[in-house]
């Protein structure tokens, strides 16, 4: 038996060289900086190139520079800011109610089979039906004013929140529920400590859809008795065939949608710091 105890640190090679085992990374790898800008810039580039070369005719899609012009005109002459603000107010109000109701319903229906059998079916059926077709009902119940618009947007954004939270909840690993059962906590604590954090990834994905749904819902609701709003502006422009104004609206949609989506994803990365996934 030969024992070499308390091995002295070997001399030489005392450097900062970093030679690691290089293994082919199968995941997506490190995040690229400024990746946020690539997508929008690409869209802009293709659009500009298409317009400049005449491949995209202005009748089909207004050129970016003309949209800038129209934007400036809308801003200065037609209270574009006011339109954006009143649309955002509606969207945010509707979204808030929709998210609250969606999470609540998802909890009730996710945690009890009876709740599920009562709420899940109607929500699935509701989401199979075009919102536009439901508007007459909402008009009858809620009038044609702000109330109807907020309710409609709430019902639109409720759906993805409900479905995703419900799905996320039901996908929580059963072993955590087991743990919670042996810990001897009640329903409320179970929801707070296990269900909500466990369903959070699902909820956040739902938020990504809810946010865009709420914005898209504006186009529908602002056809009804709106005097301002992006959807209203686009409806009018659509009727008059003012392509450039429509495209101003689309750009605003694209910008807000992309920003909101990125914000939700960014939030997701922060609040899901406890996960180690392919994304890290």
């Amino acid at each position, binding site marked *: 038996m030969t024992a070499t105890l308390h091995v002295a640190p070997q001399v030489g090679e005392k450097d900062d060289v970093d030679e690691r085992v290089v293994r082919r990374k199968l995941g997506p790898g490190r995040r690229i900086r400024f990746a946020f800008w690539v997508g929008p810039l690409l869209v802009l580039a293709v659009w500009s190139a298409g317009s400049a070369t005449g491949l995209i005719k202005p009748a089909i899609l207004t050129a970016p520079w003309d949209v800038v012009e129209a934007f400036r005109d809308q801003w200065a002459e037609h209270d574009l800011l006011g339109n954006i603000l009143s649309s955002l107010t509606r969207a945010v109000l509707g979204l808030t109610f929709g998210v609250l109701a969606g999470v609540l319903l998802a909890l009730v229906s996710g945690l009890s089979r009876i709740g599920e059998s009562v709420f899940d079916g109607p929500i699935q059926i509701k989401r199979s039906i075009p919102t536009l077709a439901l508007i007459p009902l909402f008009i009858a119940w809620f009038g*044609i004013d702000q109330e109807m618009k907020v309710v409609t947007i709430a019902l639109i954004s409720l759906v993805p929140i409900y479905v995703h939270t419900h799905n996320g909840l039901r996908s929580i690993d059963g072993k955590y529920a087991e743990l919670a059962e042996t810990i001897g906590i009640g329903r409320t604590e179970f929801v707070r400590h296990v269900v909500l954090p466990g369903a959070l990834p699902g909820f956040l994905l739902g938020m990504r859809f809810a946010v865009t749904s709420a914005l898209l819902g504006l186009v529908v609701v602002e056809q009804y008795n709106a005097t301002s709003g992006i959807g209203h502006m686009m409806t009018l422009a659509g009727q008059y065939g003012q392509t450039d104004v429509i495209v101003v609206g689309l750009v605003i949609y694209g910008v807000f949608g992309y920003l909101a989506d990125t914000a939700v994803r960014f939030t997701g990365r922060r609040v899901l710091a406890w996960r180690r996934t392919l994304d890290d």
Partner: protein
Amino acid sequence: ACGNDDPAATLELSAALPEKVPSGTTIRLGDPAIQAVLGAAGLDKELSAAGVNVEWANISGGPQSIQAFRADKLDCSSVADIPSLFAAWTGTSTKIIFQSVGADPLKFPIYKLGVAPGVTVNSLADLRGKKIAYSAGQAQGALVLRVLQKAGLSQKDVQLVELTSTSDSYVTALGTKAVDVAPLGAQNIKIYEAKYPGAGSIGTGIRDDAATLYCLTTSVQDAAKAAALKVYVGVRTKALLWQNEHPDEYAKLYYVDSQGLKPADAKAVVEIYGDKAIPASWDNAIKRLQETADLLATEQKHDKLDVTTLVDRRFEPVETAAAGSHVVTGDAA
């Protein structure tokens, strides 16, 4: 144009319409009401005999036809008078190549004013102070402006409620008293009044019978297509007259088979719309179009428009010739 690469012979807009349709000429038409009756009227043979191929699209009405025009996927579409104005205002050049009118336009209006239950509107003057559904770009919107003009009211005397007319949104808005007055298609009045007890309606007393076929200017400038369109205008004239003479077949072929109405409803609709007529001259129609253009230009802040640039009167004699003795003159025209 991006659709057809072979350089078609161009035709000056002042040149005479060519007689001969080159073989293989295809025109793309959104004209479902005519399409439905051509076979029964035996007119499809007339088209093929002249060497005209038609590619039918189930498209009619303003926004859709303008979209299709812009994409160069359609040559002509049947519409009322408003779309050609908006096409011009938004930079799509079109020409009206066909005009028809109502045989008795005031008795058979296209639109009436629906009145919400519990609201009293007996004459246009009663509109003062009322909430009126208004959608700027649609024919209904233009109608409201014309009604106000006729009633001697301005936009400030009433409360215009921006509301797009989709599906039965106007009926619902009236029924739920979200608005007091809204223009409804004449065929919907009966349904509306049946649905909502106490609901009423009044006529506008305004002619809203303009009906046109409007085409992409580039299509009219295409010699081959112009020749084919010339043939089609003749055929279309006869088809309209055939519809007048065969209301039951027309109801069945178009409203039942193609539009999905019940036979009874289809008959009712045909009756409500009344007979169509071919005017002996387009002068009056153009004059009314100019008035509408002027009204919209002021009220909706559009550019002034000379509507004579929107019509191609070379087709006028083709139409009247095909109608022969059936042309109407005087009040109706």
